[in-house]
């Protein structure tokens, strides 16, 4: 019986150890682990099997203001701390791709404009983790049965659970490439040919934020090889 009991305890411990952690690969998540870079192109401009009209564009500008997208009536509390950095990253990527910056856009309109916008949203997450009295009883009686008294009248009733709640701010940087020649002032539609989105949780120190922004912007352009000249 003693051997059987040892095997029973071993089996229970192995099973509990094996199944208690539901998220075995999500340990020590850093902010950058939650970043994504998404790009989409207009199929009128590019097709993997055929045309690539992006190659027809030569000059660009990046407006010097980052647009903050806000709901009506909501005050603008989005930081402008990284605006200049983001604009410079976009500009340097376009130069690396082989485009030429139009330094006098008033006189010579550029072929394309890349606008930068930012939006944020608040999220609250609440989790509750129940655990069971029988587990408490098992541990106490198994480990120190002689010195601990445990009320064992309702061993399978849910015992206490513990809850956690946390909130985070999600931030999105939106890069939009506009075909300037097709802009029609009489229409409210903007002829977008490419867009890139960086999305992630806002947080971390300044160095971490700039690294993430730089990586995300680079990734948007690098995963769009049709933009290379």
């Amino acid at each position: 019986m003693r051997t059987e009991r040892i095997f029973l305890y071993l089996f229970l411990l192995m099973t509990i150890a094996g199944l208690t952690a539901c998220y075995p690969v999500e340990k020590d998540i850093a902010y950058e682990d939650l970043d994504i870079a998404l790009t989409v192109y207009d199929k009128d401009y590019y097709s993997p099997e055929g045309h690539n009209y992006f190659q027809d564009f030569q000059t660009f500008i990046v407006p010097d203001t980052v647009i903050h997208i806000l709901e009506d009536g909501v005050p603008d509390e989005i930081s402008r701390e990284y605006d200049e950095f983001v604009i410079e990253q976009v500009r340097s990527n376009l130069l690396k791709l082989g485009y030429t910056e139009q330094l006098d856009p008033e006189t010579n309109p550029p072929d394309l404009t890349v606008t930068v916008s930012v939006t944020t949203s608040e999220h609250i997450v609440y989790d509750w983790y129940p655990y069971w009295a029988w587990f408490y009883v098992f541990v106490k009686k198994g480990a120190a049965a002689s010195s601990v008294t445990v009320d064992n009248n309702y061993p399978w009733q849910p015992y206490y659970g513990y809850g956690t709640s946390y909130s985070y701010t999600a931030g999105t940087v939106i890069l939009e490439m506009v075909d300037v020649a097709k802009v029609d002032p009489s229409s409210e539609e903007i002829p977008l040919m490419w867009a890139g989105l960086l999305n992630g949780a806002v947080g971390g120190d300044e160095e971490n934020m700039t690294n993430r922004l730089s990586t995300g912007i680079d990734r948007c352009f690098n995963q769009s090889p049709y933009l290379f000249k």
Partner: protein
Amino acid sequence: MKPKYYLTALFLLASSVAFTQATYLGGTYSISIPLGGIENYISAGSFRGANFEGLKEINNKVAVGWILGWNVFAEKRINEVYTNDNLTLTGTQYRYMNLFPMLARGLYELGQPEGTRPFLGSGLGVTADIARTNIGLYSFQKTAWHFTIAPEIGIKIPLGYGSITTSLRYVYGVKARDLDRISYFSLNLGMLWGE
């Protein structure tokens, strides 16, 4: 017939034999190796799994029973690139697949009663499949039921009022509407209690 009806019918059948005449109840810890259908999604092996099972030896050679199992596959893929038509998405993905095989089981046992008994057999039933991908701040989940067959070999070694049991099981679940087929090897080690 929908999977849940297979499940109900199989368990009514299995429980009518195994519960009313049960001679063994027990459980096994389970580790598993993903094969076709899973390995494209998650290639890492799993050390998270367990089975609970009942078994009835209806004569000297044949036993029938049931298994309720749980195998968890998980993998982190750093900066995985996903492309769909004109959209490209890059980000670190956390992939999870929780599989819950629910099988009626038949075994052919070698050796002598009361002695060490190698066995071979097969399970038949359904597997509930919950596949979830977390990327960035977003989560995508699909669920499916796979009609499942699970041949196995193993051994039971008597120990007091029960047995130590270990088995190697190949689990194959057919393609479901929302998810691809599944297949994996599971190595199971545990105890059976009973007469």
